[in-house]
């Protein structure tokens, strides 16, 4: 794995501030998107499924006449936490410790993986059951454990499908969204030991097969790894929101439970959960409430794991926090509503973003967690039409278009002195001069438009050379008019007077 980290003497970790987040071998967005767009079946599935979930969300949101008030409350609770994150983290640590939970801190992916591996290895177990979690995908925990002889068992159905197919997740909530029921049937039939060869492709039969496959693993599990949707600073309560019951199995049956939690997941009070437990299910799967929500505060004698650990993870979050515009991305509660409405995501799917965080939120989160050091990260803020649908549905009101343009400026600044940008720079200088001077501007129109009109012909520009090709390869330029609107208007007025 391409970790920028190494173990120094005495087991201390010397690391770079950011971990994987992005998949190995990722291409810049335009290249990856072009490859994904070739997959016709995937496009059909994505279009159908994103529209379905959009409609469901819209229906349950419209039931709430106080939806806007809930969004504003959610936004402000998260803003309060982020602006005073040190206070809330210390409070959460104290409450967790008092409840009997061991709290660990990890600067980055490598350190978090090191801690989790040690905690699993201590139990002597060679297998760990996992609740679906974005943060353990972000740090590449499965690969880290597997390289050290521990089998991570994903227990969420879609995550299991992705793991069995050796595929990558393409959605935050539904990692196998890019696969239709027939493809999923084929994956399970091929990789699930003892499964019926005549397994039908209806979702109920597929879910039943997963139940049977995982039941024994749950019953024998001794150690589980989870993330957390929320951590309450006031009480040290952890909260996991799920559908299948695989989360409850992992949170209840093993002896040791390790929860990896991004430092931005803290909420101030137990009562604050009332806001997020309304916002999240409606935004995420379009349900009034998800099937199961678990809340636990330390260990309870005779009920569930007695040995609880929380690993607070930075992994670039403090870097995002340092940007007063960009930090709002840390309000994200991982609902995926922005993916489901995005016209770009709907067409390219999640793999094109090359990151565990795809879609609009990924386009602002990935470059902030990783920094703008390479061209793949710099390409992500441009993976948007800036239509604003993501902002409209975001349950915590993250102004994604605003952050996208802010990051675009940073991406441009990063490449300002590059030779490859000479042409672009010259073009913008010319534009600045022309647009800033009315004499030049009008002269340019008067001479340029008739010329462009003549050259373009009936069909407009369809195949410009050189840099122009980057536009005309995927779009036509309509034939320019002979004269500007203002020139035409003046002509009409003059004509009218005579």
């Amino acid at each position, binding site marked *: 794995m391409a970790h920028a980290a190494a173990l120094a003497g005495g087991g201390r970790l010397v690391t770079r501030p950011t971990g994987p987040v992005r998949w190995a071998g990722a291409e810049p967005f335009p290249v990856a998107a072009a490859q994904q767009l070739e997959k016709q079946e995937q496009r059909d*599935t994505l279009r*159908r499924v994103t529209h379905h979930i959009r409609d*469901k969300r819209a229906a349950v949101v419209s039931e709430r*006449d*106080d939806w806007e*008030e809930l969004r*504003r*409350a959610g936004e*402000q609770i998260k803003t309060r936490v982020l*602006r*005073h*994150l*040190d*206070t*809330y983290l*210390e409070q959460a640590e104290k409450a967790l410790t008092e*409840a009997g939970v061991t709290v660990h*801190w*990890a*600067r980055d992916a490598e350190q978090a993986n090191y801690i989790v591996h040690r905690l699993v290895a201590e139990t002597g177990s060679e297998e760990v059951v996992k609740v679906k979690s974005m943060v353990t995908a972000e740090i590449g925990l499965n690969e880290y454990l597997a390289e050290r002889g521990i089998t991570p068992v994903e227990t*969420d159905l*879609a995550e299991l499908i992705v793991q069995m197919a050796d595929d990558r997740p393409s959605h935050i909530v*539904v990692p*196998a969204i890019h696969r239709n*029921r027939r493809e999923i049937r084929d994956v399970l039939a091929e990789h699930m030991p003892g499964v019926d060869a005549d397994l039908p492709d209806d*979702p*109920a039969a597929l*879910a*039943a097969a997963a*139940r049977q496959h995982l039941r024994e693993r749950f019953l024998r599990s001794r150690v589980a790894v989870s993330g957390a949707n929320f951590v309450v600073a006031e*009480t040290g309560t952890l909260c996991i929101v799920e*559908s*299948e*019951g695989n989360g*409850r*199995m992992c949170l*209840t*049956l093993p002896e040791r439970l390790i929860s990896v939690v991004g*430092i931005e997941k803290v909420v*101030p009070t137990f*009562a604050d959960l*009332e806001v997020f*437990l309304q916002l999240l299910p409606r935004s995420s799967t379009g*349900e*009034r*409430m998800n*099937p*199961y929500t*678990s*809340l636990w*505060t330390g260990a*309870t004698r005779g*009920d*569930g794991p007695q040995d609880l650990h929380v690993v607070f993870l*930075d992994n670039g979050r*403090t*870097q995002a*926090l*340092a940007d*007063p515009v960009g930090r709002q991305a840390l309000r994200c509660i991982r609902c995926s509503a922005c993916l489901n409405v995005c016209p770009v995501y709907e067409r390219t799917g999640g793999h094109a973003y090359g990151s565990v965080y795809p879609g609009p939120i990924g386009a602002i989160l990935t470059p902030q967690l990783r920094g703008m050091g390479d061209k793949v990260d710099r390409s992500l803020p441009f993976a948007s039409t800036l239509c604003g649908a993501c902002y409209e549905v975001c349950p915590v009101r993250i102004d994604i278009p605003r952050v996208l343009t802010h990051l675009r400026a940073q991406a441009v600044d990063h490449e300002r002195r590059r030779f490859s940008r000479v042409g672009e720079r010259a073009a913008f200088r010319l534009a600045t001069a022309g647009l800033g001077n009315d004499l030049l501007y009008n002269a340019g129109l008067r001479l340029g438009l008739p010329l462009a009109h003549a050259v373009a012909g009936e069909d407009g520009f369809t195949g410009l050379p050189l840099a122009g090709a980057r536009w005309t390869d995927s779009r036509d330029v309509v034939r320019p008019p002979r004269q500007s609107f203002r020139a035409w208007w003046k002509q009409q007025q003059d004509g009218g007077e005579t």
Partner: protein
Amino acid sequence: MSAREEILDRVRSALADVPESEAPDDVAVPRDYRRDSPLGPDQLADLFVQVVEEYGATVRRVGPDGVTAALHDICAEHGVRSLVTPPGFPEQWVTGAGIVALRDGPPMSARTLDRADGVVTTAAVGIAETGTIVLVSGAGMGRRALTLVPDLHVCVVRSDQVVGTVPEAMDALARHRRAPITLVSGGSATSDIELERVEGVHGPRTLEVILLDIDEPV
């Protein structure tokens, strides 16, 4: 420097733009969302039944003497002869219906629970608008594994436990917040295949709710 100190230091320097004098409560949180339901007790019970049933669960409304008969019917329907009962659950409801009560004390192993026909518990709170049953680890509801591993969960909810909204439920739960809490909305389900909700994955595949009307005129 420890990772803890380093992360907290990074957080503090990242927040250099936040004025020293600003306290957490200075960031105003508008709470003008709806806290209470305008519905009366009867309407709340009706709404609760309707929304729970929309998840594909079955709800039976009974009077104070009707729990036993409802349990009998449920067990007959599913071919169940015994039910696991948590400590503090009124066992006479089960035995009165001619069903064997398997008391979870001393605690059964997960494998024993896996072989059980089903489990019956009480609830702590019902939420009408979301069709949610709230279970709090303890008397009548038992430990969390009881309502998770068996394939059938029968839950007896009293009508006076049904509140309208999620905020009302969180208020009611505040005094239980040290205990493990599980919010159950319909049976175990997945939307992982083409985002279609399918009932029945790892939790109990069948959820049967008995709504006990305690104010029913005799």
